[in-house]
């Protein structure tokens, strides 16, 4: 190494730089109290190893599997917490705020903020950009009887996301046109 001092300096600074780098991974609690109350609870934690394992079991000849494989190719993690209740207001605002606070960290940008007075549904979509590339996505959806948090970590291609919306019977979402009416 031509510059050993530089190497040592970089090695010393590496943890600090890593800490300062925006982290698209949210710390999602397991919400044990909500699990007890919920009629249906979905807890999904997919780390890089599980994503890679899942990709091996997706059939390349099946169009939906092929699209799914294409979407998860650049991802490092998918984390979902979703709880359905049999009555209104079964969860508190504090449950949501604990996660929402993390989205105030540098790097996160709110892409969409929606609120429906009719259905009392709120959906916020956040995106983390690094060098103009999406490296993280977070969705917080709070409805009268359902509370959902989605955190996708990794190189998210919004074009692929558009494709995803065409799958599973869901219509395409025009992300550019849907910038939140607050």
């Amino acid at each position, binding site marked *: 190494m031509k510059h050993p001092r530089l190497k040592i300096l970089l090695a010393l600074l590496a943890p600090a730089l890593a800490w300062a780098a925006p982290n698209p991974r949210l710390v999602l609690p397991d919400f044990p109290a909500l699990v007890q109350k919920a009629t249906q609870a979905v807890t999904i934690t997919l780390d890089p190893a599980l994503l890679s394992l899942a990709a091996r079991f997706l059939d390349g000849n099946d169009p939906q599997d092929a699209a799914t494989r294409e979407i998860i190719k650049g991802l490092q993690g998918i984390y*979902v917490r979703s709880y359905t209740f049999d009555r209104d207001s079964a969860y508190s605002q504090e449950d949501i705020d604990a996660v929402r606070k993390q989205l105030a960290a540098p790097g996160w940008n709110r892409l969409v903020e929606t609120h429906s007075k009719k259905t009392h549904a709120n959906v916020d979509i956040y995106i983390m950009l690094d060098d103009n590339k999406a490296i993280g996505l977070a969705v917080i959806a709070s409805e009268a009887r359902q509370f959902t948090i989605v955190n996708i970590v990794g190189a998210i291609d919004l074009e692929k996301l558009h494709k995803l919306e065409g799958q599973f019977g869901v219509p395409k979402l025009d992300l550019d046109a849907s910038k939140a009416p607050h």
Partner: protein
Amino acid sequence: MSQDLESQLRAALRPIAPSATFEKRLIACVTDDPQHSQPKANRVGGAGWRSRARWLPVAAAACVLIGVGLQNRLQVRRERENGLEARRQVVEALRVTSQKLDLAYEIVKSQSSSFTDENPGV
């Protein structure tokens, strides 16, 4: 002296009639199944043991091979189960994500249409 010895011998070796069951016992011994008595000799003897011992390494190797094969098969099966479960979770996660993006889309769409209705000139 010699006469005395002779008389003693005669007395000792005098013919005696066999007992009533002697004949039956003799016939039973002669006609006894040889398969019953033969293995006893083999069990005690070393030849049988040696012939069996020759097969022991083969049996042990077969056991090891079967064990390794079973373990490998179990591992493949476990990996397949884990893979299918991971696949199911990926599909479920993307389904939930799609659902929520769709919900946001529906809300935005309904709000835009009500905004257009309220402001037809815009």
